[in-house]
């Protein structure tokens, strides 16, 4: 199955963008339909809160619609779309406090106590993700949580692949501390606060 955004998928995306530019009224919705699931996944993983994520995807969709005519084709359409989504998420995260939530399960748990413990763990992970510097959060969401390759994430974030890899490892290391997996009493230095650990070197 061809995924939107790969070689053949990008040709289809470009055909739909061309159709949109030519005035076909459904082409842009069709284009979004091909990518909406992953756009949503990036947003919900980045922001945690479903309402914020939905607003971010909606903002991004409208931004893409307005900018479609100026798309120059120097990137794949999926890269262009997800770059807009990431920026919309980060803008939203900057404007307001993130409220991580964990969706309710669709089926009742076998053991409510286990379920409660699991949901607590998930909430802790969401909070830890929300506490990452935004560049690190964007990188780890794309690579670890939504399955983009380092190269694709680099294209979306418009940075070199080495920077994405560095940001991912720094994010994982920070999560290791915040999730309690890294407690070294002989640590020569306390882990600095988030603001002092900005990642991003190539």
């Amino acid at each position, binding site marked *: 199955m061809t995924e939107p955004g790969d070689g053949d998928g990008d040709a289809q995306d470009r055909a739909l963008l061309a*159709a949109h530019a030519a005035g*076909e009224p459904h082409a842009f919705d069709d284009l979004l339909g*091909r990518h*909406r699931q992953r756009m949503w996944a990036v947003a919900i993983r980045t922001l945690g809160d479903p309402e914020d994520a939905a607003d971010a995807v909606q903002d991004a969709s409208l931004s893409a619609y307005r900018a479609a005519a100026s798309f120059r084709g120097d990137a794949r359409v999926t890269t262009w779309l997800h770059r807009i989504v990431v920026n919309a998420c980060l803008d939203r995260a900057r404007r307001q406090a993130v409220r991580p939530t964990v969706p309710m399960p669709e089926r009742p748990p076998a053991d409510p106590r286990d379920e409660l413990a699991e949901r607590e763990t998930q909430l802790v992970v969401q909070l830890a993700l929300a506490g990452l510097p935004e560049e690190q959060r964007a990188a780890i969401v794309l690579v*670890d*949580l939504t399955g983009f390759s380092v190269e694709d994430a680099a294209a979306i974030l418009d940075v070199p692949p080495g920077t994405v890899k*560095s940001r991912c490892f720094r994010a*994982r290391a920070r999560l290791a501390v915040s999730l309690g997996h890294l407690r070294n009493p002989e640590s020569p230095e306390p882990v600095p606060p988030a603001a002092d650990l900005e990642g991003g070197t190539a």
Partner: protein
Amino acid sequence: MSEHPDDHLDVHLDLEAMADALAAAEDGAALPGHLLGCAACATRFDALRVALDAVASDLAGLPAVPAVPAGLRRSVVPAPSPGATTVLPATPVASLDEARSRRARLVLAASGLAAAAVLIVGGGLLLSHNATDTRTAATSAASPGSLPVHDSGADYRSPAALQAALPGLLSPPATTPGKAAATTAPLHGVAPAATDPLARLRTPTGLQSCLASLTDPANTSAPLALDYATYKGAPALVVVLPSAKPSKLDIWVVGAACTQLESDLLLYVKADRPTK
């Protein structure tokens, strides 16, 4: 406590330096020399390496991404204003599922049409459709052997003109002597004329390459009609495909330069399926 044999090793590695070292090591780079001489940092580095596995486990344990909210499936395209020119009847906004379903159909169209093209060139348009078609499920459902392939030479000037022509396009081409027989000749194994701008699109490989730009290789349905024609004076191939809604059809109009890399798209419209 650690001991550092060299002065430059006095500064311990912090968390981000260790993370960068791990990232570099993944690409085959050597670990920082400090780790060889500082027991404390080496211990912490090993602990970080182990901790990252636990982090990966935690991330994998996050709940699945919830379904896309219904509100996000609504169109972002503004409705046309009352005075705006509308060339085709307005259709309801395609939902996410509908769009996905339609794309899946387009996927199938590539293989189905390619198979049809092989049949066409190999032995005639209305040749038995069970001879060489190996994509049985998809293509037999759409009977590619009876796929209407027209060579109308018509000059479509608007989507409305295509809509009007749909009943004829979906019917078998005329078999009476004259224009139909003459214009379909290249489809019956005769080499396309060099002066025919659509000659490449009459060959199986050219047609398949072009359709690959419109469709997805894993498609499960077949096209409904082809017409070698012109659109606003430009040589064009009209491809009619099923739409997700039974009452609709997708019409793709591509130019002579259509290849797998570039569709040379002239028009894409969703049209009403003609009533019988």
